[in-house]
């Protein structure tokens, strides 16, 4: 694993670094777009990387879109990308349940329609998606009818999250054999138009607290998302670069998987944040120090065009 040095990437170092990798994994929010606006220069970066023979993948903790929806969004913004290059947590959670948990049964889902679609694509039925208003009294809530085929509670971003959904999840989780899987722990979700709302992490925390147990999370920084990409494309991790805007998810994922890491400053984390982790000397925090950083991925353009 490269020693994390938090080096400003510029000049000949850019080309040198790009020549040392075959595959580039990009986070999306705050890296290649903000809401529905592409980061200036980002489409050219992605398209030139591909032209130069690099593999490009998109790895996002956002569970609100299917791979197809992401591919459509990418195309609309001028990115030359295909569905199988996209790895969002809706898709990856479905893959996790199918291939790692080997789930035999249904899912109680607190999540989006996108999650429902990705689950159905791998043959997993769900119950629970959509609004779920409360009625009756307390003892009714404790006695909600449970589908005996449900073997896992899965939590992703859900704008319809409610007490009743939290309650149903708790009742299912009373069975210690019922799995609890979360898409990610991000506390904020960026929306189109630049606003942000509470993220999946808040919903997951409510479920974990009520049920008094920890979820298995699929998204960054857990290595599963890298494993998912690697299982479908042959990757040499020593020749892979992870590009992200968050030290605690993107960069940590990169470190956990032995990839090179590049922080871009068009999103959440700052250089000061990275330096604070570096100076802490704390082993747990050193994984959040990127190898390199740039102001924006557009800074890679001259080296790609030249």
């Amino acid at each position: 694993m490269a020693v994390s040095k938090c080096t400003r990437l510029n000049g000949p170092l850019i080309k040198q670094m790009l020549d040392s990798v075959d595959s580039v994994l990009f986070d999306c929010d705050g890296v290649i777009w903000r809401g529905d606006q592409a980061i200036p220069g980002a489409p050219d970066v992605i398209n030139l990387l591909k032209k130069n023979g690099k593999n490009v993948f998109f790895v996002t903790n956002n569970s609100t879109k299917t791979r197809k929806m992401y591919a459509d969004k990418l195309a609309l913004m001028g990115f030359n990308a295909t569905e199988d290059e996209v790895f969002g947590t809706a898709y990856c959670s479905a893959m996790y349940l199918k291939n790692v948990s080997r789930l035999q049964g249904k899912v109680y889902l607190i999540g989006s329609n996108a999650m429902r679609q990705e689950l159905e694509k791998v043959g997993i039925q769900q119950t629970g998606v959509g609004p779920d208003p409360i009625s009756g009294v307390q003892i009714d809530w404790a006695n909600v009818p449970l589908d005996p085929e449900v073997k896992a509670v899965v939590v992703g971003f859900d704008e319809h999250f409610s007490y009743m959904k939290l309650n149903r999840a708790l009742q299912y989780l009373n069975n210690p054999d019922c799995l609890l899987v979360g898409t990610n722990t991000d506390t904020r979700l960026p929306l189109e138009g630049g606003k942000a709302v509470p993220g999946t992490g808040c919903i997951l925390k409510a479920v974990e607290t009520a049920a008094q147990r920890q979820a298995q999370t699929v998204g960054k920084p857990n290595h599963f998302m890298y494993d998912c990409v690697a299982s479908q494309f042959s990757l040499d991790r020593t020749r892979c670069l992870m590009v992200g805007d968050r030290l605690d998810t993107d960069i940590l994922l990169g470190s956990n998987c032995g990839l090179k890491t590049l922080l871009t400053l068009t999103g959440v984390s700052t250089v000061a944040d990275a330096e604070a982790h570096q100076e802490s000397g704390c082993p747990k925090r050193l994984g959040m120090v990127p190898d390199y950083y740039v102001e924006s991925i557009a800074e890679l353009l001259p080296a790609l065009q030249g």
Partner: protein
Amino acid sequence: MAGLVSSRGCHKIRGSQIRELLDSKLNVLFDCDGVIWNGETVVAGAPEVVTLLKQQGKKVFFITNNCTRPRASYVTKFIRLGFTDVAEEEIFSSAYCSAAYLRDVAKLQGKVYVIGCQGVVKELREAGVPIVEEDTDAPTGTIYDYPLDPDVKAVLVGYDEKFDFIKLAKACCYLQNTECLFLATDPDPWHPLRGGRITPGSGSLTAAVETASSRKATVIGKPSCFMFECIASQFNLDPGQSLMVGDRLETDILFGANCGLDTMLTLTGVSTLEEAHGYKDSDDPERKDFVPDYVVETIADFIEAYEEEEG
């Protein structure tokens, strides 16, 4: 026979031992769920115990994290379950104490944004604390766009069966202002009903708001001391002469330890004797405060303690 604060003994006591302990105390504070009742079922003998203690000249208080009823409604429940002499002033719920905190301690100048059931809202109204209440039957706005009240100076989170994403988003927005207070009625992750059933508690909703806002709530309910301070300020209680009786080690017993009270675990509720011994045998010094001084099978054992003397 009072236990030393530094070496809580977890002694199971009966008969004259209970009598001796009670004779040394002026005040007895009872948790409710799992101690004097379980849901709608009274713990056999509990009403007689309360009457007996009052006859012996003790002050008796009921201190509960359960914020789903206003005090007046608790009085009705007490009567319904056979308690004949419980007054509203003796009942301290986390909802009542949260309202008291906002009015008397925080001296709030402004409104409270409430995530809470009617039990919470009614106590705030009774205390005269101005509130902004979410009307989930006629929601204003969506998660993308919602109105905020400029007079909100505090957010209070309690048990709320109508909790939804918009409430979470609004609370998070209000809490971006570091001057805005952040209170939680109680930390209980789940709320016990009869028959061992549970529903999500205030603690799970508070955890969501804490995660969204990156702030920690000030918790009013047990094990925080505020509820004891609330009672003590009204009734002039000496902690050294007070006994806390509860069924949950992590709330009631820890509360007692935090406030300098002797503590008694009753086994008619959540925690077991094994769990208490587990904390006692633990190497972790922080676990010592979860160990009760005394343990009884049921508070009904108090009756026998007095009968023995007389017999």
